[in-house]
């Protein structure tokens, strides 16, 4: 029984990290129609900012706030200098552009921080294990669950209860109408891109101590995020939540029971869902 509790907790942690990255990617796509292939590299950037801050003596929780802000600033620069120029062109342009941007950011990370694997040092109390229903579980992993829950609650509040959030949601549905109301779509696009980058940054800081930090850590995460948004439905936030949790669980169970075929099962599940539910688990996905 304790093993199953441990698997469930592991699934929530893994699914939670996937969720934060994927939801950032989904927001950028849903609100500004940019499929950002450099999203994984922004997640990497968040992890490295987190590492640098903590290594400089900044408290981990302060770094968890500062690093995503720095990634947000980087996102703002990217949006203003590169993405905005391509916005009116077909999506293929932004795909190629962000693909190139991914390599640029990876190279930049390697230039600044080198190739070595880095570990984000945690405060002493977070390195311990705690008994949860008879399972000795790492405290940091439990804290990650709280961080993810807090981020998701904050996001739901922002998008559901604030004027800014409601405007953003409206813009994702009928952008022309929002423009007619005198709201600048440029600001919506900037806001969406920066928000997506901040989420990637949060995921990076959280994943740093969990999976370690290295220059190409974002590539695998980008792939996993795509699986989440394909299964959840492109542009669907609720779908992404369900898909992330599902993938976390399936991957953990598969690794436990049929280790050698774990990733085959995850990708097979994506293919099956894509075939029978092309708009994702909740049928909310959009295709263009």
């Amino acid at each position, binding site marked *: 029984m304790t093993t199953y509790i441990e*698997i469930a907790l592991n699934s929530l942690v*893994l699914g939670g990290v996937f969720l934060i990255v994927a939801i950032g990617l989904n927001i950028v796509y849903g609100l500004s129609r940019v499929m950002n292939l450099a999203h994984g590299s922004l997640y990497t950037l968040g992890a490295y900012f987190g590492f640098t801050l903590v290594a400089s003596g900044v408290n981990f929780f302060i770094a968890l706030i500062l690093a995503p802000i720095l990634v947000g600033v980087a996102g703002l620069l990217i949006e203003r200098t590169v993405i905005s120029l391509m916005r009116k062109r077909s999506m293929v342009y932004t795909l190629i552009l962000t693909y190139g941007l991914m390599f640029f950011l*990876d190279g930049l990370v390697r230039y600044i921080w080198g190739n070595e694997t880095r570990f984000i040092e945690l405060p002493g109390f977070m390195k311990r294990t705690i008994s949860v229903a008879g399972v000795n579980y790492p405290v*940091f*992993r439990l804290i990650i669950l709280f961080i993810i829950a807090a981020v998701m609650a904050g996001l739901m509040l922002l998008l559901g209860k604030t004027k800014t959030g409601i405007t953003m949601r409206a813009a994702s549905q009928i952008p022309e109408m929002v423009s007619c109301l005198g709201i600048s779509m440029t600001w919506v696009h900037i806001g969406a891109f920066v928000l997506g980058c901040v989420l990637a940054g949060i995921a990076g800081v959280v994943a740093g101590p*969990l999976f370690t930090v290295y*220059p190409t850590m974002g590539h695998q995460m980008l792939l996993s995020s795509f699986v989440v948004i394909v299964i959840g439905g492109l542009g669907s936030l609720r779908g992404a939540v369900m898909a992330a949790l599902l993938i976390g669980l399936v991957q*953990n169970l598969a*690794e436990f029971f049929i*280790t050698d075929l774990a990733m085959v099962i995850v990708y097979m599940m994506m293919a099956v869902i894509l075939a029978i539910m092309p708009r994702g688990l909740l049928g909310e996905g959009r295709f263009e």
Partner: protein
Amino acid sequence: MKRWLVAMLALSLILVGSGAWAAQDPIKIGVLVPLSGIVAQGGVEMRDGIDMAAKEKKTILGRPIELLVEDTQIKPDVAVSKAEKLVFKDGAIALIGVFSSGVGLALAKNIDRLGVPFLTTHVMTTEFYGLHKWVFRCGQLANDQTAIGNVNGILATPTLKDRTYYVLVHDYAWGHDAGARFIALAKKSNIKIYNDSFDKAPTSTTDWSSYISKIKAAGVDGIYIAFITNVIPVFAKQAFDFGLQKTMKIVSAAAPGPVELEAGGEACYGIFGASDWSWDVNSPTSDAWEKKYFETYKTIPSDAAVHSYVGAMNLFNAIDKAGSTDPDKIAQALRGISFDGPYGTVRISAKDNCARNDAVLTETMAASSNPYGAKVVMKVLRTFKADELGPPE
């Protein structure tokens, strides 16, 4: 007559001059290492080890050495196309380096077409024994040698003996070979193995929690891992988070990189494994080498760097010995050549083109004061003689 003399003098000056220029044409050696991706740090250490050998050797056949470095990205297809560029476009007369058995085997398959000798300093698969007349291994221990070292090490170490081992490997040619070799040998030596058909994790694995849960559920007290060097500390760190090292010992089929060990800190204590060398080896040659390496590259000397250095020295000396850049002559010179370096005499077998050398069993632990500022050391527990590790010739 005078005009003739002047013309002859001018002609001879031109000929001598051009001869001198030709003599200065560098000997080009293609260096194939991973400089991007998760093993990039290992690739940098390999490159630096080879670079150190080139700087020390200075010339081959009286000509300066030029190293042409290419990033393989540890992808077989990329490595083959980079090798083609090095040989056909840049004029490399030999290839050296290569991380990963998959990449090494892909290059070996193309060696007739490439038409140059290839010496790997890092490929561990046993398939390299006598693979091709132009393919050599001189560097990291092979899987069979590591398995013997680790099994003998387990039997000789009271804290490792009488444990049941869970075997977990990276899912590619080297990992499979390393896992199978260890299990076969361990069972012969009455070491208990929990999973004969060992688990294979994708090389892209970043979250090891489900594997750790599985190991915990198995109730074992030992883990045998065959992971890409730089991933070892990542696994150790996550295992440490779950408190695994409190009850279990980890034995590794590959030596962890010192830079990653540093980053992993306390979580990386208690990893055992057989390897060529550690900076804890104390001999005048070893001490001098590691001092020079540290001064040149400002990083902790690693196993990857030292065995790449030794492999490169054997290759460079073989070309000199061959007195030619002809691949057959270089290959002939490589067979049976030896180099006395930081871990003793490293000889390339004339029988199977692969190296024989002494090695060490190490355990990672907190380092005492040292010139490199390292906090973690691969402490030498015992030394293996080349004959003990084999294979017999």
